């Protein structure tokens, strides 16, 4: 592995910024996942309000409602531990982009319907935390996107279970 270039490279190579990003992102995603796992029917209703998935066959939207929160949970745990880091963070980055676009589209629809200030638009986005203000939610998602992207592109494995495993599984 080539030596890290520049201050940012050395900073990343220490592993600490990545660890903090993994911990922050993982903790937030776990907090989003748990309410949806506890009440999958509520999450199913929220998914339906976006009208992205077809109602027939019913199995598709139902499967997403059942499996997506568990991906958020298992993916977050894997990310925190530094396991499957790139896979998890790639999917999470894609999901954050997708969720943000969907939430903004819904907010624009509500804004056209109800009028008023855009940032006063509030609704349950299905994120697991009840009703949220659109501007605050968009900023949160952008922040999460940045964290997920950093976890994806970071080159360090220094502070991860993978590195620990490699270190302690070496023959003496």
């Amino acid at each position, binding site marked *: 592995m080539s030596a890290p270039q520049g201050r940012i490279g050395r900073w990343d190579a220490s592993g600490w910024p990545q660890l903090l990003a993994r911990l922050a992102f993982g903790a937030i995603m776990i907090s989003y996942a748990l309410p949806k*796992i506890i*009440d*999958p*029917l*509520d999450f*199913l*209703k929220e998914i*339906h309000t976006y009208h992205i998935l077809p*109602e*027939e066959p*019913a*199995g598709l939207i*139902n*499967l997403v*409602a*059942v*499996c*997506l*929160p*568990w*991906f958020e*949970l*298992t*993916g977050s745990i*894997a990310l925190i531990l530094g396991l*499957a*880091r*790139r*896979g*998890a963070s*790639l*999917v999470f980055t894609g999901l954050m982009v997708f969720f943000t676009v969907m939430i903004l589209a819904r907010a624009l629809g509500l804004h056209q319907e109800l009028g008023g200030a855009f940032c006063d638009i509030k609704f349950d986005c299905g994120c697991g935390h009840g009703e949220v203000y659109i501007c605050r939610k968009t900023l949160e998602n952008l922040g999460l996107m940045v964290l997920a992207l950093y976890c994806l592109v970071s080159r360090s494995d220094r502070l991860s279970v993978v590195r620990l495993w490699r270190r302690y599984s070496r023959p003496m």
Partner: protein
Amino acid sequence: MTLIKRTSTEILILCGLACLCGLVANALHPDGVVLARNYFKVGPKKRPEVPQTTSSRTAAVNEPIAEFTPPSPVSAGDASNAVTAEVNTPQTPNAPPIAAQMEQPNPELRQDESGLNLADFDFVLGAWTAMNAGAPSVVFVDARKAEAYEGAHIAGAVLLDHYRLERYLPDLRERLLAAQVIVVYCAGDCEDSRYLATALIYDHDFPAHTLFLYEGGMAEWTERKQSVTQGAQP
């Protein structure tokens, strides 16, 4: 292993693990999603079939019904085209049950594009009054979840959470099938009452002419300061 191949493998493993955990957890969950059930079914865009009766009651359909009409017995052989509603009340224990108004298709009664009866406030208030007068053939059904129902519901309404039908319907089925007016409502700005009515018709063989959607829901009912109750289903 190349980076792309390794990342793809990681994604597949994570997705597989998530699906496995999700399906197992859903199977064990007391309020799990029934995977094969369409929770958002809408009826076909047509009027539902209404059975024609050959009873002694009149068969007229052209009388407009703007509101729920109070009970009045219909004599045998009555040749008028008036449609009447009859309700069993404590005052008239021998009066025949509600039938003619609800059994015949009425072009004046508003319906949505799939043929579901739509009830406005006046109709709902009339039905509620009849229910409170003791009519067993009128039932109000709350399609929301238990927490919303317990917070406040139309006085006398029963809880039939659309997403947890398997839990509530068995106890209510007999009573609902015997009813001739079932008013279904939810919060107001919601579709759950529509989905519930559709599910009752197409999945549970309830006669469509007995079901009435109260579109205004709890929002309109409380706005008009009508009677509400709190607490769990008795």
